[in-house]
């Protein structure tokens, strides 16, 4: 009976990935990485890793006599290798490739997940994408705005009606069509336009696409503070990350806001503002501008990210 250290190492790695994913799920940390819509998929991945681990541990010990027991372990006789079965001698090259694979396990277990901050917003070109989404008079179709991603109808899970606070697991930004229409009606006629997390991006796009229509309306919204050198002292952007799939594809949405106190607010702090929408510009592109009347510092919400809304049709 022989022990194969490499096979054992592989088993350990598979188990490691499974446990890492599992721990992220139980601690809720996973929501700092992916859109909750894909929770189930990544749970399936954790489960698959676990299954592969159980298969892998059968290869850690081999018994000469029982060689013929499984499909292809008698590799020497039956199949010429076309890939590494993990039996070939250990070399420097292998050491490097194993350490590459182990690397995410190390950082995953040892480093805390972080909520993306304004430095990432800066690298992603925050103002460019904000200016990019305002569509005054360009070729985009006017009813732009329902950023409803694919697979609308999938997963008939229960949604949480007032979901702004209740976010632990299983939260999906999903609404029925009626609820969605109700919310969009409030955008048209409500006294104050309330930016709840679930409808934030839809309102944002709607307003950006037709600033004139919403000019003079009162808004109330929250976000983290983002600043750029080109801003004047009384300007900042109240911004949020919109996560489609995972935080790597997060895009920035937010409102350029003007008020005297802006200068003394640190970037990355979370604030809630109330104000009036006006026409503004950024590098000659018209963008909505909020003249702030009231503001307060708030703590970072439990779910810092926004997710595109899915409409459930039933």
């Amino acid at each position, binding site marked *: *009976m022989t022990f194969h250290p490499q096979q054992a190492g*592989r*088993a350990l790695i*598979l*188990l490691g990935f499974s*446990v890492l994913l599992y721990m992220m799920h139980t601690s809720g940390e996973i929501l700092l*990485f992916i859109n909750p819509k*894909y929770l189930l998929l*990544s749970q399936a*991945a954790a489960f*698959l*890793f676990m299954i*592969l681990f159980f*298969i*892998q*541990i059968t290869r850690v010990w081999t*018994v000469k006599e029982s060689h013929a027991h499984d*499909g*292809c*372990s008698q590799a020497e006789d*039956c*199949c010429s*290798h*076309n*890939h*590494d079965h*993990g039996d070939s001698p250990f070399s420097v090259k292998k050491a490097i*490739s194993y350490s*590459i*694979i182990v690397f*995410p396990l190390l*950082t995953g*277990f*040892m*480093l*805390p*997940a*972080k909520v*993306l901050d304004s*430095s990432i917003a800066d*690298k*992603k*070109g925050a103002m*460019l994408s904000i200016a*990019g989404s*305002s569509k005054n008079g360009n070729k*985009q179709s006017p009813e*732009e705005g*329902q*950023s409803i*991603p*694919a697979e609308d109808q999938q997963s008939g899970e229960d949604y949480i009606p007032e979901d702004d606070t209740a976010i632990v697991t299983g939260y999906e930004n999903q609404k029925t069509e009626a609820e969605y229409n109700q919310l969009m009606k409030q955008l048209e006629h409500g006294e104050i336009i309330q930016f709840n997390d679930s409808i934030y991006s839809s309102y944002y796009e709607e307003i950006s696409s037709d600033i004139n229509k919403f000019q003079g309306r009162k808004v109330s919204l929250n976000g983290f503070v983002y600043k750029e050198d080109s801003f004047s002292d009384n300007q900042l952007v109240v911004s949020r990350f*919109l996560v489609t*799939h*995972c*935080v*790597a*594809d997060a*895009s920035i949405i937010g409102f350029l806001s003007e008020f005297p106190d802006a200068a003394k607010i640190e970037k990355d702090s979370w604030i809630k503002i109330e104000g009036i929408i006006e026409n503004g510009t950024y590098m000659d592109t018209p963008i909505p501008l909020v003249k702030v009347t009231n503001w307060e510092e708030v703590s970072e919400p439990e779910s810092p990210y926004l997710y*595109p809304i899915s409409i459930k049709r039933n």
Partner: protein
Amino acid sequence: MIKLLRSNIIDITGFAVVLALLWFITLGSGLKGSIEIPSSLLNLNTIFLSILIEAFPFVLIGVLIAGMIQIFVTEEHISRWIPKNKYMAIVMSCSVGALFPACECGIVPIIRRLVGKGVPVAAAIGFMLTGPLINPIVIASTYMAFGNDAKIAALRMGLGFGIALIVALIIGSLFKGTQFKKSVSIVSHSHSNNKKFLEKFWAMLQHSIDEFFDMAKYLVAGAFLAALVQTYMPARTLLEIGSGTAASLAVMMGLAYFLSLCSEADAFIGASFSSIFPQTSILGFLIFGPMIDLKNTLMMLSVFRMKFVMTVLAAVAGTVFITLMLLSSLL
């Protein structure tokens, strides 16, 4: 007797492995928060892990399909299914790719198995190019991202399919054989068909594990590089270079390549650039990204020769660029 011993040994090994991991986790969580780490590194790590977490389900599905092909599909099947005519084979593989809802993370192990089983390498490349680009989920998300406007989605799919055909034809005329790396010799599994299904299934799962370890290092490296770009390279500098159709097209294609986004999600990112750049450049971003990106290139290098991978990359980039430039006046 031996069997009994063997099963016990497996239990013991499993137990030891679990213990080792537990020890490691306690060690790790003890360190968590105790050391000061610059926040940009934490950002980097978060993006890096999120790309991996996003990719894992698709990679695992990919290696399982690859394992299935390896064990259940024989060379005879392939030679029966694939048309003898080279051109027909390419057209067919591009169409199959368009119907097959693959993701770029999982497609490399699949095409590797297909080539190993005797699919012409050009046809496999055609499959690789259309698989992630043309599928229902991508069509739907593109349609939504561009304000329920079917034009961009239609152009993305239509042009994408044409470009995939052209690239596959170019590759077909340049390369013969499998183009595998030297260390990756050609398979000739002689799995006799009288084996039990269960044994075959077991072998398939083992193959999937090996496949995963072949791909994983490239996936990790690719995810890390993409995260590095996202954390430290300002998009603004890139965009400042991109004035004029040709330059902005090149910039958007470069962006698509280095960001290595999933084809399901990239439409929303592409849409956010739509008022800064002409439609041609946006299409470049949308078509080039799913076909080939940084993560994908590295994964291909695990299988194919350097020269071949570079040629594919150049052919895809060149064809996308030229096609879109030629059409830019019409769009």
